[in-house]
């Protein structure tokens, strides 16, 4: 498989599937990671109302317990030499019949452990926050059950040692997100949003299923070790197909172009859910899938290029949409889309970008969760108002939210020394590295990444200024309620403060402890390569772009008055407000032909299939009646049937013999 090197970048060592090391009994504890939240979810759902009083704390405890297990595993792994850090924990064989043998196992390695720590740590903070946020919701216990289920499914997804088990977690995440987005499903639009997320995810799932089918046909197995070890035997076209199918799956889960439309609507769920979906679980799954399947992409440069292109498109798409949104949560959603676009772009750059994609994913997990929780805190204080044109000057009323949000904002902008600077800047640098000696790619992807940074600075500053700076644009009363912004309770602001600390320092800390090296056992080692421009030049250019965006936003949204009614705006603004017509495009391209197709199929089904089925059913029932008539209840005729049976069988046997 080392011959693959030449297929990608000559100087890059691909993610070699390391030898799965043996003796580390501690790794078995990984089972607990999934089991704890799963058990808690089961308890909460089974006990029902009886657990209403303490259910939410059990949920918090389960999530925190997983985090502790994760930390223990981390300490254990740090004690091992780098080449022994990939462990497969065999859980058992579900089915072993001939060619079909389905094993279940967990893979504990630096990559999965990184996800575990991110998911459980941020997840636990969000759990704590939700205790207060959902306090007045009668169904809080059910909410925590779903949150736990979400965390458990995500952990299973990242810990699985085969695509089959990964798929189980993948579906679990889809299910949990459906339940949570539609948690307030008594509002029809919320239920519709949940359904939309579900459908978009289904499209992605088909991709994963196709990929699994191709892999099973090619390699005869679906566990990572076997598949990754045998990649060399597959043809490049097969690998390209698998890669594209995996990308489709990733697009569905990670809201990448063209399956991104559900993410904005998914804001219907309670805000902690959005934080969980956007920061730690769900949308990161696609990035994980691509990075985990790095070996496959190493053999399929075309698929890898497509990954980078999709990432680049999405990062611009999300950024443009983010500039026009007035709904604070939707603006944040657009920024998630864009940031995930960065990660996918990095993952599409090959081994050189994998580590940076994960790096950015981790820092993003912190600052995005912090900002979402901050947005929730703002809504909490503003009676669930989400329109930023009705905010303004809130920084004076909620100091803690203001400062924690500011940390997240500076981090996503990439201002040194905040977390985003270390991770995003690396991606921009990597994008400027020529691949296969083709400088055009470096220029295209690099410029897009640079441009994206500028736009990000603009719309995130716009969001921040419209909310916290400027004059107040809200009135004392709204819909008859009194409206007086106030700081949220400690249960809400403490998690925000913790995340803010991460937003400030995490990038520097991870850089200092050698995060990229830590991931090497999982994603492979990449030689450092020079980008087409010098690194200081790139940092300078990025900072200039960011400063421009920031200044523009400052002038328009902090200094000058923001109109309460949205102005008509340019063509681009109007397009961006409706997500660049993605719903219209979806309708025209998918829904309407689909409906037409469905109608024709229904007709064909009625005319042809139903006819055949009805006929068959009639035949069967007719035969059944015949049998029933033979069953006339007389012992004598039963005996006769037996005698005739023996005689007929004897005749048949003797005839066959003769």
């Amino acid at each position, binding site marked *: 498989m080392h011959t693959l090197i030449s297929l990608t970048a000559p100087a890059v060592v691909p993610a070699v599937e390391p030898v799965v090391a043996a003796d580390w009994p501690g790794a078995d504890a990984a089972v607990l990671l999934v089991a704890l939240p799963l058990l808690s979810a089961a308890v909460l759902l089974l006990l029902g109302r009886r657990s209403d009083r303490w259910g939410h704390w059990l949920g918090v405890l389960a999530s925190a317990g997983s985090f502790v297990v994760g930390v223990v595993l981390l300490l254990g792994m740090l004690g091992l030499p780098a080449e022994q850090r990939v462990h497969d924990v065999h859980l*058992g*064989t*579900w*089915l*072993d*019949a*001939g060619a079909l043998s389905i094993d279940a196992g967990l893979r504990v390695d630096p990559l999965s452990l990184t996800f575990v720590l991110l998911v459980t740590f941020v997840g636990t903070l969000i759990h704590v926050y939700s205790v207060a946020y959902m306090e007045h919701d009668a169904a809080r216990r059910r909410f925590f059950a779903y949150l736990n289920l979400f965390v458990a499914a995500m952990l299973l997804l990242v810990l699985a040692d085969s695509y089959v088990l990964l798929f189980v977690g993948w579906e679990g995440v889809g299910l949990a997100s459906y339940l949570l987005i539609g948690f307030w499903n008594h509002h029809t639009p919320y239920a519709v949003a949940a359904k939309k997320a579900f459908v978009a995810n289904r499209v992605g799932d088909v991709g994963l299923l196709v990929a699994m089918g191709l892999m099973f046909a090619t390699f005869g197995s679906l566990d990572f070790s076997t598949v990754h070890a045998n990649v060399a035997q597959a043809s490049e076209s097969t690998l390209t197909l698998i890669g594209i199918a995996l990308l489709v799956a990733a697009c569905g889960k990670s809201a990448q172009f063209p399956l991104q439309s559900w993410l904005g609507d998914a804001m219907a769920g309670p805000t902690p859910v959005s934080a969980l979906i956007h920061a730690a679980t769900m949308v990161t799954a696609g990035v994980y899938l691509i990075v985990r399947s790095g070996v496959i992409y190493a053999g399929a440069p075309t698929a890898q290029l497509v990954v980078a292109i999709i990432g680049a498109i999405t990062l611009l798409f999300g950024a443009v949409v983010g500039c026009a949104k007035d709904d604070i949560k939707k603006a944040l959603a657009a920024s998630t889309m864009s940031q995930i676009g960065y990660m996918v772009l990095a993952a599409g750059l090959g081994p050189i970008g994998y580590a940076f994609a994960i790096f950015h994913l981790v820092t993003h997990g912190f600052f995005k969760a912090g900002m979402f929780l901050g947005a929730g805190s703002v809504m909490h204080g503003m009676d669930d108002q989400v329109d930023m044109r009705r905010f303004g000057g809130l920084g004076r009323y909620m100091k803690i939210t203001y400062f924690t949000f500011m940390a997240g904002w500076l981090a996503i902008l990439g201002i040194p020394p905040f977390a985003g600077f270390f991770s995003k800047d690396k991606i921009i640098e990597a994008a400027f590295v020529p691949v296969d000696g083709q400088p055009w790619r470096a220029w295209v992807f690099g410029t897009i990444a640079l441009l994206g940074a500028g736009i990000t600075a603009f719309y995130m500053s716009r969001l921040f200024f419209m909310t916290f700076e400027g004059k107040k644009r809200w009135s004392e009363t709204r819909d008859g309620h009194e409206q007086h912004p106030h700081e949220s309770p400690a249960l809400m602001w403490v998690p925000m403060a913790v995340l803010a600390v991460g937003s400030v320092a995490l990038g520097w800390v991870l850089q200092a402890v050698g995060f990229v090296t830590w991931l090497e056992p999982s994603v492979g080692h990449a030689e450092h390569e020079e980008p087409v421009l010098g690194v200081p030049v790139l940092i300078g250019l990025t900072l200039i772009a960011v400063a421009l965006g920031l200044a523009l936003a400052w002038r328009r949204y902090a200094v000058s008055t923001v109109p309460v009614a949205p102005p008509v705006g340019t063509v681009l603004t109007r397009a961006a407000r409706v997500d660049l017509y993605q719903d219209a495009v979806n309708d025209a391209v998918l829904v309407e032909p689909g409906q037409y197709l469905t109608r024709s199929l229904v007709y064909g089904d009625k005319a042809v299939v139903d006819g055949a089925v009805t006929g068959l059913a009639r035949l*069967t*029932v007719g*035969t*059944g*009646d015949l*049998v*029933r008539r*033979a*069953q*006339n*209840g*007389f*012992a004598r*005729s*039963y*005996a006769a*049937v*037996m005698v*005739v*049976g*023996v005689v007929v*069988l*004897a005749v*048949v*046997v*003797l005839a*066959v*013999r003769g």
Partner: protein
Amino acid sequence: MSGFTVPEIAWGPMVPVMVVLLTAVVGVLVEAFVPAAHRRTVQLTLTLAALAGSLVAVAALWSDTERTGGTDVLGGSLVVDGPTLVLQATIALLALLSTLVVADRVTGGEDAFAPAAAAVPGSDYEELARSRGLRQTEVFPLLLFATGGMMVFPATTDLLTLFVALEVLSLPLYLLSGMARRRRLLSQEASMKYFLLGAFVSAIMLFGIGLLYGYSGSLRFSDIAAATATPNGMEGLLVVGALMLLAGLFFKVGAVPFHMWTPDVYQGAPTPVTGFMAACTKVAAFGALLRVVYGMLPGMAWDLDVVLWVVAILTMVVGTVAALVQTDVKRLLAYSSIAHAGFVLTGVIALNDAGLTAVLFYLLAYSAATVGAFGLVSLVREQGTGEDGSPTLLGEATRLPQWAGLGRSHPVVAVTFTLFLLSFAGIPLTAGFVGKFAVFSAAVDGGAWQLALVGVLASAAAAFFYVRIVVLMFFTSPHDTADEAPTSTTVTAVAVDGPAPDGEDGTVAATSGVAVATAAPERATTTVAAGEGLTVVAVAVCAALTVLLGVAPSPVLDAIASVAALLP
């Protein structure tokens, strides 16, 4: 004249059987000497202890057998090897669960059995027995005798012992079938039919044994197998003899065309007994069939394959098709058990180790769901209004329309029943799926892919009538199906004698349930009897087994596979 040589008897490996049979004998003495007030408690305790002891004995023999491959007991009349132990454990476990269902009583201390089985139905004597609260505690020793016979049946490698075991297991069942508390004529009719046809088929089988002896000069399976290898011009005897022997076994497993007794007997017998019969008899009979087909007849596989194929296909198709038009739960389950016999036969035909393992697993999965399903049927009752206006519990509500809306009124019962139905239908994550998967893949491995294809198609069709019940329970309100519901039978139903055909509404009322119109209510509602909790325990264990074997079948499959080798 050669002297009689006393065979070496290895007592140890016989303990599982001995415990059961000896306790049965003790049970007879209990009937004679223990005062009536304590009889039930003593009998129930003894029975459960015996069956549990039998299970423990099997477990104790396990590791030895796994190491040595098995022991020859009684000079070859009895063989205790891996499959024997698996089957004996299955039978003992299921008999234990069935005992719980059998012993359960609803309010008023009323069990499923007639207070005086010998009394003429509807007679004054019967009424007297009922009002005096007599109990038939003989059911427990009868159950144990039958279980003992079943545990010998698959362990024997000798035609005579085979026949004796068959009778030991059958005779108590004939009796038990006739002891239903309600619908007594139907029950007695079932018993009579079962006995007549059973005796008839015993004769056929005995004739077959005679022919085989005539051909080979021995009753030992291994000797007959050896004799098939050396042709002597009398193969006609051999083929016809084997066929007649198989007919007897087919009768016991309920394979077409020897299945006709099944629906009538299953419907007429007291429901707890039906569950016991449907599960344990089938396990025992398939065990014996395995030993005959694998141990005695492999030399004639070429000739007999056609028989097995024809019977398997007919069984799957007829069982499925007939089940589609049933309107009575017990009859439907009877036909479904016929179809399952066909599925198991595909595994038998595979004639390889995988087939052996698959059949053993399938039997466990099927019988767990069967005992559970019949246990639930015994709890779903009609409810009428008594003379004082209070609700009283009547007989079982076995007509399908009566099950409508059960999902709403008794969700736990309905969900559990659905679980068993899904297992019967072979839906993934239930034991039934793993079982079906195992037998069909074994059949494909054994070169019988056409058979597996028929099996898959039949199970697809069979899923229809299982799902129909699910739909009925959950998505139909009871009023949608309210038909000209015949009045429920009172306890002292005077019945018109006659056959019990699969009538249009398949109900008992149509044939033998014509009530003496005393204060019979206009229309009975369906309810679930509480019972003493014994049935609930049994059903819960069956449900747990069904889920467990479906979700994590590997340990059990591995354990069975590790001992799946028949001693000659």
